């Protein structure tokens, strides 16, 4: 093993470089604190949270959380998502409420949970979960950033049951085909198609 020898000049460079690096990091921390984490965190992410392995002997229903990392500064009167799944091995049973609220009164900012439209029969028939929320008041009952819970941004929960054809070790992917949090100004919408919304797909892994 050869010995590394640092010359006095190199030692000086290392000290200066380290100093600059520390300053840059300090500057970033300052900016982070001053500007706010949301802007620096970048594109919102819609995620299907992958659960622990599900036992193939499990016959009860189970749920997967769908979370949103953040929302923009505008309101979103509509939202939808399309998620493909293997309906021969999973039975989709519907959605359960999450923790992401919508306004229910424009003036008092009362909040309520959105009523998602979904048709499980159709989803199992097509192998695609299509879910939509539409505020027909034109924005009065919309999603907005201030209604997001601090640490629990569960938009909704997908409810499944394993079919008998599921075998231990099988993996069922849950893949976002499309998702959008729609604003009346489409340039402000968060959409997969425009890259303004990122997605993280989920999966269900069958265990013993």
């Amino acid at each position, binding site marked *: 093993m050869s010995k590394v020898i640092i010359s006095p000049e190199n030692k000086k460079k290392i000290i200066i470089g380290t100093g600059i690096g520390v300053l840059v990091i300090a500057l970033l921390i300052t900016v982070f604190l001053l500007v706010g984490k949301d802007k620096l965190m970048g594109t919102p992410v819609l995620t299907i949270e992958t659960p622990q392995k599900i036992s193939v002997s499990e016959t009860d229903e189970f749920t997967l959380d769908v979370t949103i990392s953040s929302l923009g500064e505008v309101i979103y*009167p*509509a*939202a*939808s998502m*399309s998620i493909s799944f293997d309906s021969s091995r999973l039975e989709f049973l519907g959605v359960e409420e999450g923790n992401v609220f919508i306004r229910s009164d*424009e*003036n008092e900012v009362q909040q309520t949970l959105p009523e998602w*439209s*979904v*048709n499980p*029969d*159709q989803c199992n*028939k*097509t192998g695609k979960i*299509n*879910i*939509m*929320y*539409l*505020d*027909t008041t*034109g924005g009065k009952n919309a999603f907005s950033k201030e209604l997001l819970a601090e640490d629990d941004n569960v938009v909704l929960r997908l409810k499944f049951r394993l079919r008998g054809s599921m075998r231990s070790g099988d993996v069922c992917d849950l893949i976002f085909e*499309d*998702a*959008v*949090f*729609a*604003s*009346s100004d*489409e340039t402000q*919408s968060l*959409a997969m*198609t425009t890259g303004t919304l990122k997605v993280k797909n989920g999966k269900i892994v069958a265990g013993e």
Partner: protein
Amino acid sequence: MKKKVLSLFLAIVMIISAIPLTSIAVEKEYVYLSISFDGRYINDKNNNPIVYLPIELDKIEKVDLTEYGLDNMLYDADGDGEYETTALQLLIYAHEELYGGDWGDVNFDALPGSSYFKGGIFGFTENLMYFHNGDFPVDESQSSDYMTVGATSDRIVLEAGDFLDVASFECFSFLWDSLGGFHFFADEKGNLVHDFEVQAGKTKSVKLMHSFCDLMFGEAYIYGAADYEVYYGKTYGKAEGTLTTDGDGNVDITISKPGTYYLWCYGANGSDDGTHSSCDYLLETGAPCIVSAPAYAKITVGGEDEPSSSRQPQDVSAVLNATMAQLANTVKAPAFGTNAGEWTVFSLARGEYFDKSNAYFTDYYNRIVETVNTTASSINLNGALDKNKSTENSRLIVALSAIGKDATSVGNWNLVDAYSKNGINWIKKQGLNGTIWTLIALDSNNYSTSDSTIRQQCVDSILDARHDDGGWSLVTSKTQPSNVDITCMTLTALYPYRNQPEVAAACAEAIEWLSDSQLATGGFPYGSGETSESCAWAIVALTTWGINPDTDARFIKNGKSAVDNLLTYYVEKDRMFAHQGTESNAMATDQACYALVSYNRFVNGKTALFDYSDVSFGEKEEIVIGKPKASLGMPSEITDDSGATFNATVSIDQWDNAAGYKLIDLIVNIPDGLSVASVTASDRLKSGSVSYNLEAETGKLRIVYFDANNHNNITVSGNSFPAELFTITLKADSAKENDRLSVNIGGMSIKLTSDSSDDNSMIVVDTSKAGGTVNVVKGISYSAVCLYTGDGVDLIPSEKKAVAVAVAGVDNVNKLTYSDGAFTYEFRYSKEISAKTGVSTYVALVNSSIDMTKFVDKKNFTFTQEKAAEITFGDTNGDGVINAQDALSAVDTWLRKTDAPEDDEILSLNVNGDSRINTFDALGIVEKFVDGSEYIVVTKAATLNTSK
């Protein structure tokens, strides 16, 4: 034996009473009478002038000449054994009933055909002259080719609509003075006219005629009365202006303010030619005598007065649609009652918010049937829904008729017959409200009544209740001030009876009173303040009478119209209206909503709010569950290419998911030259699977659909009908040019059980119209169908229509351009409709004036090699994905948060294929996304047979 006789008698009475004496309302008939003396109309006993006064013919007929000892004056002109109604009866009636005289004081020579008044009648001292329908009456029975004999009162036969002008003069010189005789107003051809019409600010040319009959020489002359003074004003005798006729008797009149005005002239002196020497009057005064009769006519000045003519009617559709949406969302299941019931249904139906076949209305009707059966049985009063309140029936009839339901057959009851069978006393238990709403209900669908007089009894009762100020109120004292709401309801109820002179006069005054009552806010008073309800009813009444409440000068005060005022009560955050102030109120919202519906219908040229002549009452037959109809949609042409395919779609016009249907089967007759490539079930059909087989020998395609494994009920998703059930893909194996291939459904049934002995086990579907013919053509051919035409209400202009053109004989998707010399359009290729029909189909939004035949004419189309632009219904932003952004776009477009859509946007937004873009389209996009439902516009394109 007595009992048997009595039973027989009672049976006969019951049978007779059960025979419906149904008939339509009998309208009164009138004759018109003017009476003048020395050139001025005389007054009746109430000091009102007897000038063109309508008198019921029926009342004249009842004057029995024999009771007056005038048996010899009875006149049977046509020898049919029936005596005619004559002017003598009219004069007797007028003398006693109008003038207030006693016939016994009249000195009358009762000589048939030569009768003569020697004095006493109407206080006159001399004989009478007659002018009948603008001419001197002739006694045909006494006249010959050589001699014309004037008719005396006993020989002037009166008929409905006749006008008799009676004149008397102090001086007898009218008989020979060339200026003597009658005057009358006439049109430019010299024909007698009593009612002129002109628009405010426009000039009307009127002719004043003079008719002179020279009794000395037996000659009659009619000519324009030159240089004669004509007066006009709102009240006879109170001139607002004077005009002088020209040398031909013409006078031009221009009135700037709308309203009812009168024209008149007085009788004039005779010529001072010394022929009056025998006249005592002349001798005493030294002045010529009056020798001619006055004339009179009404002139209705319509439209707007000049200062407000620039005001354009405002568009209230955004507020109206928001209000209707709120009502529909709030009142999800309307039921019998004032609140959340009939008024909401009425507003949404007349506002055309839902189709008549929408479940909102059909479910309401089903609830109503139950309520009526229970309530009417409980009340047990000939279909009455309340012992004292006839308005319970009226309100329900108004709502049911608005959704195309016949109120004479609701469950087990006839709601209309309650009026006739319970009579006017039951109706009047609610005072004026009862009679008003009875008329509105009866006339909504022109319902027949077993008592043919019931309408007129209501009209007479309403007229009797009129207040001295010209309006009406629920207070019986006529000297009390009238109430705007009740007056406006009355005006609305009386509109169908406006041909009755008393009604016309009363309503004209009431409209003036209403104008006078309007406040500086544009609203109308209620007590010491004003309410939105009063304003709402003013708008309903005015639009019913053809008066624009937003632009008519009579109803603009301080620059504010009635419509302006009503909109001030709109509470935007609630999408409702306030009664007063800013607090939303359900009843105020109901009334404001139908007032805006009324106004919107008026400005769009539709029938009035309570005029349901636009409602199809035949629809009820089509939506009765148990008699479904099938249809077969397919293109009208295919090419002669071997192997060409097209689709035939089987649809049904109704489905009851609660009925428990287990199986559908049908037989489709397939002609030689076609084979079946596939049969698929629609996504809307749930639970089962489809099987089929084409029997080659007979050409019969048998299709069956059921759940073979679990025997679940078959259901159809969605609410729109017709609903597509199956798509049959047909292949032209050996079709040749000019072949006509007829495909039809030979039979179809829906089965509930397997028990064939049960009469209720099966529903036979009406397939009588489920068929069509496909023509085989060479090369490219075109067929077209109109998908919808805009109605100008919600974002689709009325001059636009969507057209789908199916092009047979093309495999590629090239650009298709239409150009007929006047219009040019690039059509968009529709993958969805093409897949549905099996034929390449393009759509475009075009000018609605273009005849559909132009879209099947080859020479109007050009294909170019470029790829055609495509249209994807529901993909409003064209990003290739249908999602929440598109649904939101439909909502925002309807809310007018975005610019009015361009043609392509309209095509992609209007997914339900009606005449408007609204929240239904947004919901259509949601349903497509979530349920996989097919857009109605696509179904429509495929299920309508295209035509050449």
